[in-house]
C-alpha cells in the first residue's frame, strides 16, 4: 500500500531530545520570500517543500553609446559592465525527523514574511496526524493530496530534471552506486513503493498511472514483526541488528534439507528453502540479530519476486524502488537488488533514486503549484545548496550527523529556459557527456580533487579582486572557500554524493558555490580587458590570413583556434602564466603549441573534406572570451561563411570562468561586424546566428541544451558540429557520437591529463569525425 508507515509509529525518538537546537537559518533558507508550501509527513521523517525567490547579483555587459567615441584608444574597454540584481526562482526541500516538527513549524511561522500563502499541500500518512498542529502553527489551511499521485508526480519530476537521479546498487563494487544516464523518454516504468506495505504502480505518462498490484508484506511487516521478535522498537535499530546477523541459524536452507548432497546435485545449498524454517522448534533460542536478518531476507526476497513478476507481466524493465524501507539504507538496497537479480535472472534491474525521500513532497508541491505550471520549466539541482546522497546516514557521515542532525536539503533552480537534447546526438539514450567517471577511476579522482583544492586559493583571490568596491567581498569569498572545501571533502569520502563524480560536476559545483556567495562573474573584468585587446588585433589577424594561400590559410585558421584556446584562466598551468606575464601574446601562444603531428591529428582528413562541397550549417560551441573567441573562432567562422556555410555560434547563457557568455558574444560580434564586411552581412542576412546554450558551465552537456538552440539546429539542418576547448571537447564530449560530422579541438593545458593521454603540456587534440554511413 501507499502510505509511508505513518500513524502508530513507535518510530522516531521518544528518547530524543526534542529541544535540540537547530541551525534553522542554514536549513530553511530563503524563507522570507517563500510563498508556496507543501509537506509530506511519513512515519519518521517530514519533508517540507517551498518555492522561493533568490536575489542574485549578476554582471551585465552593455555596449557604450558608440556615438563619437573613439574605440581605437588603447585604454578604453570595449563595453561596460554593471552589476545588477536578478531574481531567480528556487525550490527548497528540507527533510527532518518528525521529532523536530514543532520546532520547525515555529521557526517557519516566525520567519514567514509573505502573507499571500493561505494553503499548504500535505501528503503522507502523517498528514492526518499533524493536520491540526500545522493549521494551528502556520495558520494555513491544510489541503490533503493523494499519496501515490504525489509520489509519481515527484518521481517524474526528478527523473526529468536531475541527471544521474537513478542508480543501481552493487554491493561489492567500488563505488556501490552506479548512476544511470537519464533516458530521454522516462516512460514507462514501474514504481515499487515500499512503505508499510508495498504498492506497485505502472507509470505510462505524466498523468496516466495505474496501481497494478501490491503486497501487505512491506516495511511495516519488517518493523512490526521485527519489534515482536526482537523487542527492538526502532526501524533503524532493527536494520542495524539485521546487518550484524546470520540468517542461516533461523532459515532452513537447501543444504539443511538435502544434507551434503546438494553439491553433487548441483544445487546451491545456501538458498533459503523455508524462511524461519529452523525456528519451528520449541524452546530453542535465537539471537535478535539472526532473526532480524532472516526477516529482512524474507521480506526483501518476497518484494523482489513480486516486483519481477509484475515487471514481466507488464513488459517493463525499468523498476524504481522507493519508500521508507529503502530510503538511504544500503542494507535494504542490497537485499532488494540481490533478490531482483535472482528472480529476474538479470533481466530486470533494481533502480533507486537519489532523492527518493523527497518524491512525495515534490509531488505535493507540484500539485499546489499547478497554476504556475512548473513542468513547463527545466530545473537544475543546485549543488551548493543540496546535501549529497546519504548525507544523513550515520554509517557514512558520523561527523556530519552530529553537526546538522539528520537534516537533509535539496535545492533546485528554475532555469531561465527549457532544455532539450541536441537533435544531432546519435543515440540520446546512451549519450554520456563526461569522458572520465571519477567515481570509477580512483586515481583520476584523487588527482582532480587535489587539483581543485589547490586551485581554490586562486579562485578566492580572483573572486575578491573582481569586486574591488565591495566591503564584504573578502568575507563572502572566505565563506565560499569553506563551502567549496567542504564539498570537496565530502566528495573525497563519498564520490557518489551528487551522482557520478566528474570534472564537470566539480566545475559546476564551484560555479554554484560562487553564485551562492554573490560572485556571479569573477572574470568579468578580465574578460572585458582581453576582449578589448583581442578586438584591436582582429583586423591585423584577418589581413595576415587573407594574404595566405588557401591551403596555408586552412592550417593557420585551425592553429589560430587552438592558440586562442591556450588562453584559459580555468586551467591552472595557464592562469599561472597569465598571472605573471599579462603580455603573453597570441603569437607566443602559437609557438607553445605542439608541432604536427598532433596528439590526436585528423587534420589531413579535415583538409580533404574542405576541398569538397561546403557544409550547409555549422554549429560551433565557443569556449573562452578574448583571444579565443575573437582571434580564433571568428576568423574560422568567417572562412566557413565565405564558403557558403551558415554558422550558429552557441555561447553560455551564464558566466563560467572566463568563458564567453552569450551577451558578450553579441557585443563582440557587433564590434567585429563593424570591422569586417563578411561578418557584417552574414549577421544581417542571418547566415550567422548567435545563440545561447542554456548552460552556465565550463563543460557541455549536449542532452541539456537550450530548447531554442535545439529547434534552430533542426531547422537549419546543421551538418557540422565544432566543439572547442578542454572543458567541452575533452572533459566532456570526447566520445560523444553525433549523427553528423564533428570537429573536437582542444589544447591540453593540464600536464597530468596530457600525460594520461600520452602527450605533454600543450599537446593538441584535433579530432575530426564523420559518422559511419
Amino acid at each position: 500500500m501507499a502510505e509511508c508507515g505513518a500513524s502508530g509509529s513507535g518510530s522516531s525518538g521518544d528518547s530524543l531530545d526534542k529541544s535540540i537546537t537547530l541551525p534553522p537559518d542554514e536549513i530553511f533558507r530563503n524563507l522570507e520570500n517563500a510563498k508556496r508550501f507543501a509537506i509530506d509527513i511519513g512515519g519518521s521523517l517530514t519533508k517540507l517543500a517551498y518555492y522561493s525567490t533568490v536575489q542574485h547579483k549578476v554582471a551585465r555587459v552593455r555596449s557604450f553609446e558608440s556615438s563619437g567615441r573613439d574605440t581605437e584608444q588603447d585604454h578604453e574597454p570595449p563595453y561596460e559592465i554593471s552589476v545588477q540584481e536578478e531574481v531567480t526562482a528556487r525550490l527548497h526541500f528540507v527533510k527532518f525527523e518528525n521529532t523536530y516538527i514543532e520546532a520547525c513549524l515555529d521557526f517557519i511561522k516566525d520567519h514567514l514574511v509573505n502573507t499571500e500563502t493561505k494553503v499548504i499541500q500535505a501528503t503522507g500518512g502523517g498528514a492526518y496526524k499533524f493536520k491540526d498542529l500545522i493549521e494551528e502553527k502556520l495558520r494555513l489551511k491544510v489541503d490533503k493530496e493523494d499519496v501515490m499521485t504525489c509520489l509519481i508526480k515527484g518521481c517524474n519530476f526528478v527523473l526529468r530534471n536531475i541527471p544521474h537521479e537513478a542508480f543501481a546498487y552493487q554491493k561489492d563494487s567500488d563505488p556501490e552506486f552506479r548512476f544511470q544516464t537519464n533516458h530521454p523518454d522516462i516512460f514507462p516504468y514501474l514504481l515499487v513503493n515500499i512503505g508499510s506495505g508495498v504498492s506497485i504502480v505502472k507509470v505510462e505518462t505524466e498523468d496516466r498511472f495505474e496501481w497494478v498490484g501490491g503486497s501487505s508484506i512491506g516495511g511495516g511487516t519488517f518493523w512490526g514483526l521485527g519489534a515482536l521478535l526482537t523487542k527492538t522498537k526502532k526501524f533503524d535499530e532493527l536494520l542495524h541488528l539485521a546487518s550484524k546477523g546470520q540468517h542461516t541459524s533461523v532459515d532452513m536452507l537447501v543444504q539443511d534439507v538435502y544434507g551434503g548432497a546438494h553439491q553433487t546435485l548441483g544445487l546451491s545449498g545456501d538458498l533459503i528453502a523455508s524462511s524461519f524454517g529452523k525456528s519451528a522448534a520449541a524452546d530453542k533460542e535465537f539471537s535478535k540479530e539472526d532473526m532480524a536478518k532472516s526477516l529482512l531476507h524474507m521480506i526483501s526476497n518476497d518484494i523482489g519476486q513480486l516486483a519481477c513478476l509484475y515487471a514481466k507481466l507488464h513488459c517493463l524493465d525499468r523498476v524504481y524502488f522507493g519508500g521508507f524501507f529503502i530510503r538511504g539504507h544500503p542494507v535494504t538496497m542490497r537485499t532488494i537488488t540481490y533478490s531482483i537479480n535472482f528472480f529476474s535472472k538479470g533481466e530486470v534491474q533494481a533502480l533507486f533514486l537519489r532523492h527518493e525521500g523527497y518524491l512525495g513532497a515534490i509531488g505535493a508541491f507540484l500539485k499546489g503549484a499547478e497554476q504556475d505550471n512548473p513542468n513547463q520549466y527545466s530545473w537544475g539541482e543546485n549543488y551548493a545548496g543540496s546535501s549529497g546522497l546519504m548525507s544523513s546516514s550515520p554509517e557514512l557521515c558520523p561527523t556530519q550527523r552530529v553537526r546538522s542532525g539528520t537534516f537533509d536539503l535539496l535545492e533546485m533552480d528554475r532555469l531561465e529556459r527549457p532544455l532539450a537534447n541536441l537533435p544531432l546526438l546519435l543515440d540520446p539514450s546512451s549519450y554520456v557527456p563526461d569522458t572520465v567517471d571519477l567515481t570509477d577511476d580512483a586515481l583520476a579522482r584523487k588527482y582532480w580533487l587535489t587539483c581543485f583544492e589547490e586551485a581554490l586559493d586562486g579562485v578566492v583571490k580572483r573572486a575578491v579582486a573582481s569586486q574591488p568596491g565591495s566591503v564584504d567581498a573578502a568575507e563572502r569569498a572566505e565563506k565560499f572557500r569553506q563551502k567549496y572545501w567542504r564539498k570537496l571533502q565530502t566528495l573525497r569520502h563519498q564520490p557518489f554524493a551528487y551522482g557520478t563524480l566528474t570534472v564537470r560536476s566539480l566545475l559546476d559545483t564551484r560555479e554554484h558555490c560562487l553564485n551562492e556567495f554573490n560572485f556571479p562573474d569573477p572574470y568579468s573584468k578580465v574578460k572585458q580587458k582581453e576582449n578589448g585587446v583581442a578586438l584591436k588585433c582582429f583586423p591585423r589577424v584577418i589581413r595576415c590570413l587573407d594574404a595566405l594561400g588557401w591551403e596555408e590559410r586552412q592550417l593557420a585558421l585551425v592553429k589560430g583556434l587552438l592558440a586562442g584556446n591556450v588562453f584559459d584562466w580555468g586551467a591552472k598551468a595557464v592562469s599561472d602564466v597569465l598571472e605573471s606575464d599579462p603580455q603573453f601574446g597570441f603569437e607566443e601562444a602559437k609557438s607553445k603549441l605542439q608541432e604536427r603531428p598532433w596528439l590526436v591529428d585528423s587534420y589531413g582528413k579535415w583538409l580533404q573534406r574542405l576541398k569538397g562541397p561546403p557544409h550547409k550549417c555549422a554549429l560551433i560551441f565557443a569556449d573562452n572570451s578574448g583571444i579565443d573567441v575573437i582571434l580564433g573562432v571568428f576568423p574560422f567562422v568567417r572562412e566557413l561563411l565565405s564558403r557558403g556555410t551558415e554558422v550558429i555560434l552557441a555561447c553560455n547563457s551564464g558566466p563560467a570562468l572566463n568563458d564567453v557568455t552569450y551577451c558578450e558574444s553579441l557585443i563582440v560580434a557587433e564590434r567585429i561586424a563593424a570591422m569586417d564586411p563578411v561578418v557584417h552581412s552574414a549577421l544581417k542576412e542571418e547566415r550567422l546566428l548567435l545563440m545561447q546554450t542554456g548552460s552556465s558551465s565550463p563543460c557541455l552537456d549536449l542532452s541539456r541544451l537550450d530548447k531554442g538552440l535545439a529547434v534552430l539546429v533542426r531547422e537549419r539542418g546543421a551538418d557540422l558540429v565544432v566543439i572547442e576547448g578542454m572543458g567541452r571537447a575533452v572533459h566532456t564530449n570526447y566520445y560523444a557520437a553525433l549523427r553528423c560530422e564533428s570537429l573536437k579541438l582542444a589544447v591540453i593545458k593540464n600536464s597530468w591529463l596530457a600525460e594520461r593521454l600520452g602527450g605533454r603540456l600543450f599537446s593538441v587534440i584535433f579530432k575530426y569525425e564523420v559518422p559511419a554511413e
Partner: protein
Amino acid sequence: MGAGRLGVPMERHGRAADTYASAGEPAPEGPDGRRRELLRRRASSASEPPVGSSASASAEGIRRNRPGSYSGAPSASRQRVESLRKKRQLFPWFGLDIGGTLVKLVYFEPKDITAEEEEEEVESLKSIRKYLTSNVAYGSTGIRDVHLELKDLTLCGRKGNLHFIRFPTHDMPAFIQMGRDKNFSSLHTVFCATGGGAYKFEQDFLTIGDLQLCKLDELDCLIKGILYIDSVGFNGRSQCYYFENPADAEKCQKLPFDLKNPYPLLLVNIGSGVSILAVYSKDNYKRVTGTSLGGGTFFGLCCLLTGCSTFEEALEMASRGDSTKVDKLVRDIYGGDYERFGLPGWAVASSFGNMISKEKREAVSKEDLARATLITITNNIGSIARMCALNEGYFGAVGALLELLKIP
C-alpha cells in the same frame, strides 16, 4: 524453493500420496528411459538462476539430479531395477517422502492375503503390518492420518488399504533405528524415497539400517501422486475441491472439482517452502518459481511469536485469533476504502503493520498473532500463484509447442 516438496500437513488431501505409482502403470520404455526424457525437457525450460555467494534468496529454480538414481554399487542397483520390472515387488510396499520438516510415509496394507501367503509371511513383515495398522500414533511424534486412509484400493493387482503416516524429520534417526530393530533389511525390499531427505539420510539408511534407498525425483513423484490419488478418488468422493464464495463466511462452501481435463495446470506445492509448477501433461512440466515463505515460515514464526510447539497447535490458535488487530488495514490508513486505487478498506495494507506501536503490541493475543501469520503467508502464496498463472497465460501454447518437439 526447493523444499516445496517438504510437506507440512497443511493440505491434507492429495498430497501425501507419493506411492510409487509406476508399479500400476508401467511406462513403455520403463521408468528410466522416460524419466531421462523428462529431465532433458525440463532442463531446457528451467535454467539455473545465477546465485551469488551470499546466502540468501529463496531457492528458486533448483535443478534436481537425475531422478531415480540408486545408491550402492551399480550392479546391485541394476539387479533391483531388473527385479522391479520383472515381477511384482515383495511386500511391504512403502513410499517415503522426507521433507525439511515432515516425513510422509505411505503404506499399502494388502487385504487379500491368502492363507498360503500368510503362512509364508516372515515374522518381521507381519510385525510391521500389525504395528502400523493397529496404531494411530507411533512414539511421541508419529501420527497416522486415519481420516485420509484410502480403503479397498487395487494396486498392481492387489487389493488393500493405503495408510498415510507422518512424523517430524528430526525423528528420522529414530525411524532408521526402528528399521534396523525390526530387521527391515532382511525383507529385501526396495525402499523408494523422495524429498531432500532421501539424499540427506541416504548414508544413514545404508550404514545404520543396512537399507539402500531408491531415490526418486520429488516433483515427478508429486505429479504422479496427485494424478494417481485423483484417479482413485477419495473413498468414492472427489479428491480435488475448491471453495466457492471464499470471502463470504456464510456462503462459502467446499465443492468438488473435476480434474478430468486438468492441463495446463499450475501446481502450488506448499511444504516448508513453496514450489510452483506449470504442468502441461503428466510427464511434462516445469518449475516456474517458488518462495521461501511457506508452511515452515508459518510454523516457525508461530513458535517464536506464541511459543506453540506443534503445527496443529499453531493452526488451532490461528483459527481463534483476529488478525485485524495485528495487521494495518487500508481503512486504518485512509479511514475507509482507498478509492484512487480501488482498494477496499478491509484489505490488509501492511501485515503486522500495527505492531510497530507499543500499545498495540501489548493489546494483541497469541491467537491474533498466529492468525496474522497464517493470513500473511497464505495471502502471499495466493498472490504469487496468481501472478504466475497470469504470466503463464501462454502456457497452454507452450505446452503444445513442447509436444511438437517430442514428435520424432
